[in-house]
C-alpha cells in the first residue's frame, strides 16, 4: 500500500532557488526508505513538504491518499540539528507531544517513563539538554518522537553530527526500535553506507534541483547487525552499483559549486 505519494512535485523558494523539480516518488507503508544525494540537493526539502512544514510550489503530495494541508498528522520528524527544548528537562521534553495531544495524566506518565527507559536514559529524567552528550540528546529526541507513536518517521541526517562509534550505536538502536513497529521511515542521508545498512530501499536523487535518479531494493536480510552487514558481499555489490549513480551527481554538484564559487 502506498502511504506517501509525490507526483510532479516542484519546490521553488521565495529566493528563486528551485530545490525540487518534478519529483515523483511513491513510498510503500511500513518500509524503511533512504534518500541519498549530494549535499544541498533538496532531500531535506522533501521531508519538510511531507511533514507539511512547507508547501510544494506545484504538483501533488498526498499522505494516506489525502493531500497535505497544514501539518501532516501522525508524522514524527527527527532533525539534524538539536531540536530539544533547552528549558525543559528530559522528562518534560518527552512528555511535550503527549501534553499537546491532551493524553490523560496516568497514561502520559506511563508512556514517558517507558520511552525514557527504552532509549536507555533512566536516571537522567531531571537533566536539562545542555547536561547531556550529543548521543544522549539524540536518544531523547528519538524518545520524544516515538512516544506519540507516529505512523511515519521522517529523519533528516539525524546522526550526522555524532562521532562514528556513537553513530553506529544509534543506527543499531534505531533499527531495533523500528523493527516490527509497522512504521514507515524516510531517512535522509548523504552517506551511502548508512543508507544501505539501514534501509529496505535506497532512492538516489540528482544534484539540485533534485529529481529521483534511481531506486534500489536492498535485499539484505533482517534483523541486521549494523557492524556486520557492511562485510556482506551483497552490501559491497549494492554499494558499487549505487555509487556509480551517485558519483555523477556528486561530481556534478561539486563542479557547480566550484563554478559558482
Amino acid at each position, binding site marked *: 500500500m502506498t502511504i506517501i505519494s509525490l507526483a510532479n512535485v516542484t519546490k521553488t523558494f521565495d529566493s528563486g532557488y528551485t530545490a525540487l523539480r518534478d519529483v515523483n516518488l511513491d513510498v510503500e507503508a511500513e518500509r524503511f526508505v533512504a534518500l541519498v544525494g549530494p549535499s544541498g540537493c533538496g532531500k531535506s526539502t522533501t521531508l*519538510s513538504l511531507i511533514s507539511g512544514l512547507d508547501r510544494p510550489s506545484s504538483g501533488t503530495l498526498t499522505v494516506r491518499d489525502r493531500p497535505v494541508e497544514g501539518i501532516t498528522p501522525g*508524522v514524527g*520528524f527527527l532533525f539534524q540539528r538539536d*531540536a530539544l527544548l533547552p528549558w525543559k528537562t528530559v522528562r518534560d521534553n518527552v512528555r511535550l507531544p503527549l501534553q499537546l495531544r491532551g493524553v490523560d495524566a496516568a497514561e502520559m506518565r506511563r508512556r514517558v517513563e517507558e520511552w525514557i527507559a527504552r532509549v536507555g536514559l533512566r536516571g537522567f529524567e531531571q537533566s536539562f539538554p*545542555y*547536561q547531556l552528550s550529543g548521543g544522549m540528546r539524540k536518544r531523547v529526541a528519538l524518545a520524544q518522537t516515538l512516544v506519540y507513536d507516529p505512523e511515519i518517521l521522517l529523519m533528516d541526517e539525524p546522526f550526522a553530527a555524532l562521532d562514528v562509534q556513537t553513530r553506529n550505536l544509534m543506527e543499531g538502536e534505531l533499527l531495533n526500535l523500528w523493527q516490527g513497529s509497522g512504521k514507515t521511515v524516510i531517512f535522509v542521508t548523504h552517506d551511502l553506507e548508512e543508507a544501505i545498512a539501514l534501509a529496505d530501499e535506497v532512492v538516489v536523487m540528482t544534484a539540485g534541483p533534485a529529481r529521483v535518479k534511481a531506486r534500489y531494493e536492498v535485499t539484505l536480510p533482517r534483523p541486521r547487525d549494523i557492524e556486520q552487514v557492511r562485510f556482506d558481499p551483497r552490501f559491497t555489490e549494492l554499494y558499487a552499483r549505487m555509487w556509480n549513480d551517485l558519483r555523477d551527481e556528486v561530481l556534478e554538484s561539486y563542479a557547480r559549486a566550484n563554478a559558482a564559487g
Partner: protein
Amino acid sequence: MRERTRPANRGLVLAIQAALIAAALLAWEFSVKIGWVDPFFFSAPSQIAATIASWWQHGYILRDVGVTMQETIFGLLVGGAIGIVLAVLLASSRWLGAIFVPFLVLFNSIPRVTLVPLFILWFGFTLWSKVVSAVVLVLFVVFFATYDGIKDVDPTLVANVRVMGASRFAVMRHVLIPSALTWIFSSLRSAVGFSLIGAVVAEYFGAQAGVGYRIQFSESQLNTSGVFGGLFILMVLVFIINLCFQGLQRRLLVWKPVDS
C-alpha cells in the same frame, strides 16, 4: 591554565570595593574639612549622613521610599505587561510586526522627560501621573527585548514542536516565550532602573511625597545635603532591587549552562 581561568576571589573583590568607597568618602570629607571644597555646593558625607538620620527620625524615609517603590512597581508591572503582550502579538504575525514596529521605534525616540508635565496635567499630582511616566519608559525597553528575543528563536525548535502538533498558542507558550525569557529578564533589570527614573522624575515635577519630591524640596531650599541624601537613597534602592532580580533569574533560568 587552571589558575588563570579561576574567577576572582569574591571576598577580596568586595573588600577592595569597600575600601575604594571608604577612600572616596574620606577624601570628600577631608577636602571639605580643610576648606578646598565649599560644603554649600558640595555638602559632605557627614552632613549627608546627618540629613538622612534626621529624615529617618521624622519618618520621612520609609514614607518616601514606600511611595516611590509603589510607583516604580506599578510602572514596572504595567509597562512590562504591555511590553510583553505587545511584543508577543507583533512577533506572532508578519503583518502586524511590519505595520506597527516602526511606530514603536518612532515613539521610543521621543525624549520621555518632556512628556512628564503633560502627564501631571492629565493625571494631577496623583500616583497615576508617576506610574504613566514610568510605563512609557519601561514599555519600550521590555517590548524591544521581548520582540528581538522571539524573533531570535531557533526555527528548528519551532518546526519540531509544530510537527508534534502544537497550535500557534502552544508554540508561543512552549517555545517562543521561554526562549525570549532570557532577553526579557535582562531587559527587566534595566527596566527597573527606568521605572524608578520615570517615577522619580515625575515626582520631581509635582508630588506630595516620594524620593523625587524629597530631592526637589531640598533643592528648592538650596539644601545640597538633602539632594545628595535623596540620591543616596535611590542608589540603595536600585541595588536592593538588582539583588532580588539576580536571585529570581537564577531560579527561573536553571536550564542554562552556568558560565563562570
